[in-house]
């Protein structure tokens, strides 16, 4: 029973983090907080990718003498790329938020929608 529970515990914890990030994105109005929530969403996906590659009793995928079991290097490669792309999009998103603040005077979603509705 505990083996079955532990077998899927990492998946369920990652899904909880995924949903927490999603909740922050859809339920909060501040644009900077939405970007932080998006970051949490992305990080939980990294966990979802790397956890299945782990083999208990193995080691990091650096081939050396005395080790025969390595954890899977392929998810590591994909997630390395994903992390750097994530910070690049965070930088771009924050630059857009700064420009929105200078143009509208606020970064709350409700104020922005009101200001846009008044213009139309």
């Amino acid at each position, binding site marked *: 029973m505990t083996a079955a529970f532990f*077998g*899927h*515990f*990492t*998946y*369920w*914890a990652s*899904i*909880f*983090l*995924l*949903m927490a990030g*999603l*909740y922050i994105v*859809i*339920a909060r*109005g*501040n644009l*900077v907080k939405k*970007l*932080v*929530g998006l970051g*949490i969403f992305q*990080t939980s996906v*990294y*966990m979802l990718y790397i*956890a299945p*590659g*782990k*083999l*208990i009793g193995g*080691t*990091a*995928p*650096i*081939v*050396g003498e005395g080790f025969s079991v*390595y*954890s*899977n*290097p*392929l998810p*590591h*490669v994909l997630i*390395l*790329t994903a*992390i750097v792309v*994530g*910070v*690049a999009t*965070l*930088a*771009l998103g924050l*630059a857009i*938020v*700064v420009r929105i*603040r200078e143009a509208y005077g606020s*970064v*709350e979603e*409700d104020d922005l929608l009101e200001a846009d509705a008044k213009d139309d």
Partner: protein
Amino acid sequence: MIETTVIAVQLALMAGVAVAIARSRNLFAVVVLSGAYSFLMATALAALDAADVAMTEAAVGAGVSTVLLLGALHLVGSLEAKPARSPAGPLIVVVLTGLLVVYGTFGLSAFSDPQAPIHRHVVPRYLEEGPKETGVPNVVTAVLASYRGYDTLGETTVVFTAGIGVIALLRRRKRPGKAEAP
């Protein structure tokens, strides 16, 4: 046993920090909490034997991301308005989506299963032939730079594009006859 406990504890702490981020309205606290979240994530990744990824997550998530967020907060203002709508609607959507995804994970193989499909197809070849063909013991670097070199070229181009995008958005043009604020 110890590794599994460490990973479980880290994940539980991360869940607590995520809930705290959702509830806090002081954005400076949110940024500091997200830095702590990245450090917990890096520890969990180190316990999962992902050494390269843990180093990158610690440097990028807890280092550069925190600096960028603080820089943006300095320009934008650090208090969040009270939420105007009730949280019931988003909560229901999120719980339903979560249950659906959990149902989807029942088809995945268990944690640390050597017979899982991801350990079978191309990875044994990388682990055996990689150091012999490229002369580099670190299989992650060999795969990143040599076997999947096109992906890394694309990723470097993405970082470059994001950089010039931020330059295009935030560059100051010197207008003649107008004093610029330093």
